[in-house]
C-alpha cells in the first residue's frame, strides 16, 4: 500500500497533465495552474525540511567541534541574520536585505563565475594533450575554430574564418542535434515509464 498509493497518484496526475497539454480550454488551463500552485505549496513545506537539514548538519558540526566547524557558524549566522533582516525590514529594492544581497551575495556569485576562466584553461590543457586520435582531432578542431574566429585568422588565410564557421555549423551542429534527438526520446521514455509504473527506482525498487 505504501508503494501503491504513490504509483496511483503518479499515474493519475501524469495522464491528466498529458490531457491538459492537449486541451486549450480555460478549464484545462485552470487545472494546470492549480497543479502548479500545489507544487509551490509542496516546495514551501519541503523548504522547511531542507532548512531543518541545514541547521541540523551545521549544528552537529559546531556542537561536536568537527573539522572546519567555524565555517558552520558563518553559514548559520548568515542564514539567521538574513532571515531576520528580510522579515523585519522587507525585501523592497531599497531595503537592507536587497542592499546586502546586491553588494555581498551577487559579487560573490560573480567571483565564482569569473573563476570559470581559470578552470577552463586547466581543463583545456588536460583535454588538448594529443594522447589519442580523438584528443588530437579535438585539439585540431579547437585550434582551427579559435584561430578562425579571431581577427588574426583571416590574415593567415581568408578561407579560415569560413572553415571555422563550417566546423561549428555542420559537424558540430549535426552531432549536437543527434544528442538532442536521443535526449528527447530519453525524456519521453523516462516520463512514460514513471507514469505507467514501469520505472520504480524512485520508490526504492521494483516490488
Amino acid at each position, binding site marked *: 500500500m505504501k508503494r501503491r498509493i504513490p504509483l496511483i497518484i503518479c499515474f493519475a496526475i501524469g495522464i491528466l497533465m498529458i490531457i491538459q*497539454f*492537449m*486541451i*486549450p*480550454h*480555460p478549464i*484545462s*488551463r485552470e487545472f494546470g495552474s492549480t497543479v502548479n500552485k500545489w*507544487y509551490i505549496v509542496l*516546495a514551501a513545506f*519541503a523548504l522547511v*525540511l*531542507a*532548512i531543518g*537539514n*541545514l541547521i*541540523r*548538519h551545521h549544528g*552537529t558540526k559546531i556542537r561536536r567541534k568537527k*573539522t572546519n566547524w567555524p*565555517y558552520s557558524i558563518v553559514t548559520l549566522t548568515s542564514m539567521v541574520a538574513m532571515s531576520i533582516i528580510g522579515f523585519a525590514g522587507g525585501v523592497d529594492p531599497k531595503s537592507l536585505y536587497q542592499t546586502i544581497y546586491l553588494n555581498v*551575495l551577487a559579487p*560573490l*556569485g*560573480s567571483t*565564482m*563565475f569569473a*573563476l*570559470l576562466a581559470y*578552470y577552463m584553461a*586547466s*581543463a*583545456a590543457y*588536460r*583535454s588538448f594533450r594529443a594522447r589519442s586520435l580523438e584528443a588530437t582531432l579535438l585539439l585540431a578542431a579547437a585550434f582551427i575554430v579559435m584561430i578562425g574566429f579571431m581577427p588574426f585568422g583571416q590574415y593567415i588565410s581568408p578561407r579560415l574564418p569560413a572553415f571555422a564557421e563550417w566546423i561549428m555549423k555542420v559537424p558540430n551542429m549535426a552531432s*549536437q542535434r543527434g*544528442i*538532442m*534527438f*536521443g*535526449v528527447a*526520446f*530519453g*525524456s*519521453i*521514455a*523516462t*516520463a*512514460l*515509464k*514513471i507514469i*505507467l509504473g*514501469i*520505472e520504480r*527506482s*524512485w*520508490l*526504492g*525498487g*521494483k516490488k
Partner: protein
Amino acid sequence: MAFLLLIFSIAPPTQVQAIDKPNDAGSAIIIEWGFSKDDEAIEKYVIFRSTLPDTMRVKIGSIIRGNNSFEDDNTDDKKQYIYIVAAVKDDATFYSMPSDIVQSSPQFFNTGRTNILVCILVFIILLVFFVQRARMGKKLFVRKIPGLDAVEEAVGRATEMGKPILYVPGLGDIDWTATIASMNILGEVAKKIARYDTPIIVANRWSVVYTVSKEVVREAFIEEGRPDRFKEDYVRYLTEAQFGFAAAVNGIMLREQPATNFFIGRFWAESLIMAETGAQTGAIQIAGSDSVLQLPFFVAACDYTLIGEELYAASAYLSHEPLLMGSLKAQDYGKLIVFVILILFTLLSFFNIDLLHLLEVQ
C-alpha cells in the same frame, strides 16, 4: 480640397476576414485582409471593432504597412463582433468593407498538437510491446556503456579507501526530466552503497529535490535490508544560489575528499567549476547530462561521461531489470521511426510535396 482628395485617394484594404483563433482558450479573434493597392504609399493599417448590436466603431490597434493580419486578444466569448480595417496616410483614413460577424470561443482539443498525441500513442504501443517481450523472457541486447560499468568500480574504490562518495543530482529542480533520471540512478547507486556500507553525500540545490533524494536513498537502504545504516546526514540541502551551490560542493570536495564524484542531472555554467575541482582532488568522476552545452566540459574534466540519452538508459542498465531493458528497445525503435520519417519527408519535399509542416508543434 475635394479635388485634391480625389487625386490622392488611397485604395482601402480588401476582403477583411475575421475568424476565431484556432486552438486557443478563447478571447481571441484573428483579422486578415487583402493589402491596399497603395500599400507602399500608406503609413499603417488601423483596426476597428464594433460590438453587436451596438454598431459604434472602436479603434483596437494598428499595424505598420506590409502586414495583413492582426490578433484581437481582448474579446468576450459571449459577444459578436464586426471588424473594419482602414488604411491611413497622413490624416486621411480609408475604410474597408466590414467583415462578417464573428465570435470567439475556446477549443477542447489543440489540433496543432495532434502529432504529439500520435507520437505518445505510438511510443506507448512500442513500450508495451517490448515490455511484454521482456516479460516473456526474450533476451534484449544493450550495448556497453563504460560510464555505467564504472559505477561498481567507483563505489568499490571509495569503500577500499574509506572515503565518501559525492553525488550531485544536478542543479535543475524536480520538474527537469534529467533530475528525475538522476533520482533513478541515485536509487541504484545508493543500493550499491548500502551493500558496501560506504558513506555518501548527496548535495542538493532545491528543497523538493532534497526531500525526494532523501527518500530515494532511504528506500534503497531499506531495499538492501540495511535501514539502520542510513544516516540523515547523507543527504544534504546546500543553497538555491547557483554559484553558492558550486562553492559549497567545491568545499565538500576539498574538505571531505570524496573518492568518487557523480555529477548526474541538469547542469549550467557551474559544471566545469565543480568537475575540474573534483579532477584536481584525484577523485574518480562520473558525469551525465542532457545539456549539450555542458557535455564538453564534463568530457574534458571527468573520467566517464554519460552523453544525452545514456543518462536516461542508466537506470535500466544498472538494475538489469528486464522490463526497463524493454523500454530501452522501445526508445531505439522510436528513434528509428523518426529517422525514417525525417528522411522520407525531406526527400518528398524535393518533389514539392511538403509534409515537413506536419512535424511542427504549436
